[in-house]
């Protein structure tokens, strides 16, 4: 090594393409770099932006909760799996935020959405922000959210907006893997030991109050319920009881758990605005 500073040494010989690959912190390159960004005639830009924001927020908050399993998952393979799923969702969030900034009139970049908004401005469903807690709860939540997102993305693949349509079509392939992972674990735990069964039951009971929130705006309820019924039956578990509850993440009403999650996610970006290293 020609330099005492290990990172400078690593960077040697990598200068031919500029610094894009060395962006840490904020200042990543636009994930929609070079994509045609025009909004087609007949598409309601406000509605499109709201859809991108809600789906981006679900993905970002879910990715953060999944990343919390790193170093704590039951086995290394599960840690890798949960981190991979989170990475896919983070990629989806970046694309959706970038699209949102193009169509909501603000011209904001992805960082502004991820780092510079308060909890009240987030539009994710509350289920995504609940603390990870038990592995069984994380599996049940992943099963519910990936089933819903997959069903919704399958419809959005036919969106008149070419960018949202492409993001959704790509996401469908990833979400199929996510749902499969969660479904396999749900059966294994539900049909496993008395202890794993008990924890799965408790987790299903816990998600019940948050299910209704997923089905307010989008017509995928029957499909998602069918998936949950199939998986819970195979796992020997009861369907979660649906209980309507007040408040809605889609309108900015969140649990007390979102603000601390964002404090951790946004801390460095807010303490050192625009920092790149």
């Amino acid at each position, binding site marked *: 090594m020609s330099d005492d500073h290990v990172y400078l040494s690593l960077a040697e010989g990598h200068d*031919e*393409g*500029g610094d*894009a*690959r060395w*962006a840490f912190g904020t200042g*990543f*390159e636009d*994930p*929609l*770099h*070079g*994509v045609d960004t025009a909004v087609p005639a007949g598409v309601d830009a406000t509605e499109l932006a709201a859809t991108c924001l809600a789906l981006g927020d679900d993905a970002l908050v879910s990715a953060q909760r999944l990343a919390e399993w790193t170093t704590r998952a039951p086995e290394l*393979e599960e840690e*890798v*799996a949960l*981190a*991979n*799923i989170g*990475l*896919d*969702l*983070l*990629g*989806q969030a*970046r*694309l959706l935020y970038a699209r949102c900034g193009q169509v909501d009139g603000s011209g904001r970049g992805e960082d502004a959405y991820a780092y510079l908004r308060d909890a009240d401005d987030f539009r994710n469903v509350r289920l995504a922000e609940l603390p990870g807690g038990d592995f069984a709860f994380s599996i049940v939540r992943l099963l519910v959210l990936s089933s819903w997102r997959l069903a919704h993305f*399958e419809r959005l693949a036919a969106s008149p907006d*070419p*960018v949202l*349509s*492409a*993001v959704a*079509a*790509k*996401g*469908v*392939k*990833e979400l*199929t*893997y996510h*749902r*499969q*992972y969660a*479904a*396999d674990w749900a*059966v*294994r735990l539900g049909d496993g030991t008395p202890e794993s069964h008990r924890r799965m039951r408790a987790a299903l009971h816990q998600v019940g109050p948050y299910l209704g929130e997923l089905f307010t705006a989008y017509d995928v309820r029957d499909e998602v319920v069918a*998936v949950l019924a*199939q*998986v819970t039956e*195979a796992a020997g578990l009861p369907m979660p009881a649906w209980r309507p509850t007040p408040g809605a993440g889609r309108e900015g009403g969140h649990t007390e758990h979102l603000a601390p999650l964002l404090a951790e996610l946004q801390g460095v970006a807010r303490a050192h605005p625009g920092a790149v290293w």
Partner: protein
Amino acid sequence: MVTVPTMPTDVLRARHVAEQVPDPELPMLTLADLGVLRGVEITGDGRVVASLTPTYSGCPAMAEMRADVAGRLRAAGFERVEIRTVLDPPWTTDWITAAGRRKLAEHGIAPPGPAPRPAPGPVPLVLAATRRTVACPRCGSADTEETSRFAATSCKALWRCRACREPFEYVKEI
């Protein structure tokens, strides 16, 4: 607008340069082998436009690929280079070329089978680890099993061979 007549040989040369760029995560493959280089054109005003598509939405190698392709093209004498991201149609492992599959196997990574067609309906719930037959890239045995559907990069799964007892990576179909 100034139009510069483009020489077909320039397009071929630019295409050749871009096609030879190695993938940052699977350096035995070129971006052409992997199927992420979707096209190289020269515009009427003389810009080289290379189109790339990400493998997975969260693939952290995209910025690296963009920088590598632009850098190689500039080094080859093309001054005005533009990299476009193409999201549609989404990347599929079916686009990995025959040469790419051979190189993967030679490096101990099992190449993917045909990508699954989207099939609405029930979630396939099978608890047995093995869902498809993957030949061991070391000894060729079909007596293999999946240990994890997720691995060190988004595009791979972890498998092991019960015949030669070696673990190996497998590029999973998408």
